[in-house]
């Protein structure tokens, strides 16, 4: 099981340089995060690979809006 959405948010915060721990929530829309750019996206993909042993495709990354959405993608792949 991939853990909780809250854990995913902590992992997400740790993955991207310059994000204050505790500043994001499952409802955060990641495209609005100041630090969000192509490198941040790859850093999140690397984290998803390392922590959840799965991947989020380019299409999924474009379709999702919130961290909860991203976590949902991971959950669906880990079932």
């Amino acid at each position, binding site marked *: 099981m991939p853990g909780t959405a809250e854990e995913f948010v902590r992992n997400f915060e740790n993955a991207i340089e310059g994000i204050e721990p505790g500043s994001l929530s499952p409802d955060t829309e990641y495209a609005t995060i100041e630090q969000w750019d*192509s*490198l941040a*996206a*790859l850093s999140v*993909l*690397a984290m998803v*690979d390392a922590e959840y042993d799965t*991947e*989020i*495709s*380019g299409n999924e*990354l474009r379709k999702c809006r919130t961290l909860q959405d991203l976590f949902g993608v991971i959950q669906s792949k880990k079932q």
Partner: protein
Amino acid sequence: MSTSAIQNVRFAGVSACVPREVRKNEDFDLISPEERQKLIQTTGIANRRVAAEGQCTSDLCYSAAEALLEDLQWNRDEVDAVVLVTQSADYTVPATAPILQDRLRLPKGCLALDINLGCSGYTYGLQVVGSLLSAGKLRKGLLLVGDTPSKTVSPRDRSSATIFGDAGAATALESKDGATMYFDFGSDGSGYEAIMIPDGGLRNPVGEESLVMTEVSEGITRNRCQLILDGVEVFNFSIREVPKTVRSLMTFANRTVEDVDAFVFHQANLFMNDLIRKKLKLPAEKVPYTLRDYGNTSSASIPLTIVSELRNDILTRKMALVLCGFGVGLSWATSYVETEGISCPPIVEV
């Protein structure tokens, strides 16, 4: 089958050639100076070589091959095969390898053909030329690899214009009893759109629309005859397949990390390459990079890195190398080769 052992073929020499002109990413003024610094830090790429107008991949490969043949002192009449791996051929028709056969004064009895592969192409090419020689009839073969991505990348595409550099390389293989090369390889054409030039082939012939410059997203403006690089898909593919193929090769060749002197990966970008290195738990000193000075040079990146970073070692002692190419196709191939007393002239600049 995704592994093979090629017997009785020796890795006899390797050379590389780059164009003289240097482009610096710190001068890439499509993005802010801060963004440039971040990009250089992340990709590890500070400088790239750019071919002059009219200077083609075949010219770079020709110069690399001349330097190698000269250094090897091979009788050119004994070269039985010349294989060129490139995605920047001189012409759509004919293939470029026969032109190089003639230009390099190789005999008419020489087998000459092109292979259309990019970042995985060096290790694929080794396998193809190795297989030809392993059959026993052909004795000496030249593998030429390279590309001039500067001519097919949009200068207004921050995702690719800052990454790719131009280079060519030559590798000599010859029949020799006892020598064995090991390979692990694969293809996944379901990801063919991740790295592609959409127009200009026969599926999408060049039309009026092909040359219209379109802003795809911020910092990425290109036309349909220029290269698309889908960073997310390539990243997912690379961190999924590359560690797997390297592990599979090591198991197949029955070698441990300690047995190998250097792991030479296709030079994609530092962020991704270093992640792959860490996933495989490889010590940094065994994984050379040339990203800083040459960028991603497609199929030439592995031989260029060998010549640039390992030349002193390779000239003075026996080396066990794992070489891993991955990318456009999508495709990948990893090889284990041993070198001893090989020819390795310094990098040629033209």
